[in-house]
């Protein structure tokens, strides 16, 4: 397992787009240490901030995270990255496959545009977790994003495919969803605001938009399939589906093929 150990707090925001197990596997330690990760004219290199230890494997551990580490695991196409600590924005953005784990907190836009793989944040996530960055067509796009703690506002904004599991999500969870599934133990105000399609399952919610209409309780076969899938990832979220569920259909201001399931 290759390891990057943070020596001290980074002097500026760092861009980890080019740091992946695959990219490091073909480099010598000296070459790896010379990789540019700075975002200013200072020209910060990997070796300036991290002690580098490589073994050529497809597994990378970043010991000592920091909120200034941006785009960790972005465009990851395989292998495993584990961050012991926090990360900055756009964790796993555009990731295609592999496993990405953060033991601390993550900044905004975690999992944005990720098409595959699994991203797990043991702590909290910032706003727009699984959401779309400015001008992007879609947020999460097929990957699985797990936030054990809280996610900020606009979780899953414009997500198109995939699954988001979150403990508590802020306001506007699932806003403008194109499709996909979000399961949250609790969401804030206006969940699913402007959603076109997609499924949001929650145990508790804030104010619901008047453009959602209750369709009653239904024992649908789809929920069995979803429950089976959720159970493999989180028992607590799967348990939501074991309770009596009320279904809200919306957002009637848009395509209205979305749904919010509220566990009673």
């Amino acid at each position: 397992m290759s390891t990057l150990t943070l020596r001290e707090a980074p002097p500026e925001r760092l861009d980890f787009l080019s740091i992946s197990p695959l990219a490091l596997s073909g480099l010598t330690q000296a070459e790896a240490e010379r990789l540019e990760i700075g975002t200013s004219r200072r020209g910060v290199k990997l070796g300036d901030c991290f002690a580098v230890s490589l073994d050529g494997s497809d597994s990378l551990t970043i010991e000592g995270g920091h909120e200034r580490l941006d785009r960790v695991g972005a465009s990851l196409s395989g292998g495993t990255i584990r961050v012991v600590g926090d990360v900055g924005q756009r964790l796993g953005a555009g990731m295609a496959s592999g496993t990405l784990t953060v033991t601390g907190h993550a900044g905004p836009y975690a999992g944005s545009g990720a098409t595959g793989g699994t991203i797990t944040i043991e702590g909290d996530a910032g706003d727009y977790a699984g959401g779309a960055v400015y001008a992007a067509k879609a947020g999460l796009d097929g990957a699985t994003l797990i936030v054990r703690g809280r996610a900020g506002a606009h979780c899953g904004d414009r997500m198109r495919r995939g699954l988001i599991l979150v403990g508590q999500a802020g306001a506007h969870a699932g806003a403008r969803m194109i499709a996909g599934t979000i399961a949250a133990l609790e969401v804030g105000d206006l969940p699913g605001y402007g959603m076109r399609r997609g499924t949001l399952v929650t145990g508790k919610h804030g104010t619901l938009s008047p453009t959602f209409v209750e369709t009653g309780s239904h024992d649908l076969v789809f929920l069995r399939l979803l429950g089976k899938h959720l159970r493999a990832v989180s028992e607590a979220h799967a348990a939501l589906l074991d309770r009596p569920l009320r279904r809200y259909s919306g957002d009637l201001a848009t395509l209205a093929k979305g749904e919010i399931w509220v566990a009673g």
Partner: protein
Amino acid sequence: MSGVTSEPHPMSDLTLNGIRVIDTFAEAFDVAGTAIVVTNDTPKWAMIAATTMTGFATSVIGCGAEAGIDAILSPDQTPDGRPGVRILLFGFEPNGLKDQLIKRVGQCILTCPGTACYAGVDGPNKIKLGGAIRYFGDGFAIAKRVPDETGKERRYWRIPVMDGEFLCEDSVRAVEGAVGGGNLLFLGRTHAETLKVAEFAVEAASSIPGAILPFPGGIVRSGSKVGGRTKGMMASTNDAYCPTLKGRAGSALPPECGVVLEIVIDALTSQGVSDSMRAGLHAATEVGERHGLIAVTAGNYGGNLGRHHYHLRDLLAPAAGQEG
């Protein structure tokens, strides 16, 4: 697709369990085949859906497809954890199979209360099923992707219907190597006794996974030959095996034979046909003596029409693992 023995059987030395087995072969054909799983809240309604869908599916010539129930599935064997039934469907070619599949699922599974429909086999050829039936949803249908237990993502259509939703997998798979037309003919003395023999054979033959016997109760009494004396007939009665035509030139029946019943087998693999025929042959001959079975033979067209030939000689040995 019941076959005809093209010429009267020669005298044979083959015997199995004391019953004469004619040294001939069953001739079978390459067909397009698929499998689906239908589930419901109760085994009863899963079976109602399955029997409805597999109705009028005895022969591809007259029905467009041959279909049957392959297995009854317990809740832990189905994707949604409900009781289910695995159905096999065979057609002459992939397009015909697709047409029949969509019609039958659309008319018999979609309409059945509580039923859901899933792909029941993996294969190289995709048949759009839910993706075609979704138009019944009039734009209100929802597609959802959910990974299965192996992590493979599957796409489903949720079509609003009056009891909630009809859930149907977007596409199913057609296999390569499916074979239709394996068969056995039982030459007996009386109708009741020969029917019992055939029933034993059906039970054994249909126990092979991936094999079905599409005729009523698995048994066909109207074996056919290609063409006929009437112009335009694609098939006509298998006169060589009609007991009321005994004594004429061309009859293949010994004087003591009063009834002939046939079983026809379709399977997703050639091995499935072979295993199923073997099981049927052994089961029939085991009970044959006490039920007046005279001989067992098989139908073929001289070997020129179908590329799969199942020689009864090769089926006399018990299945691997069941010796002695």
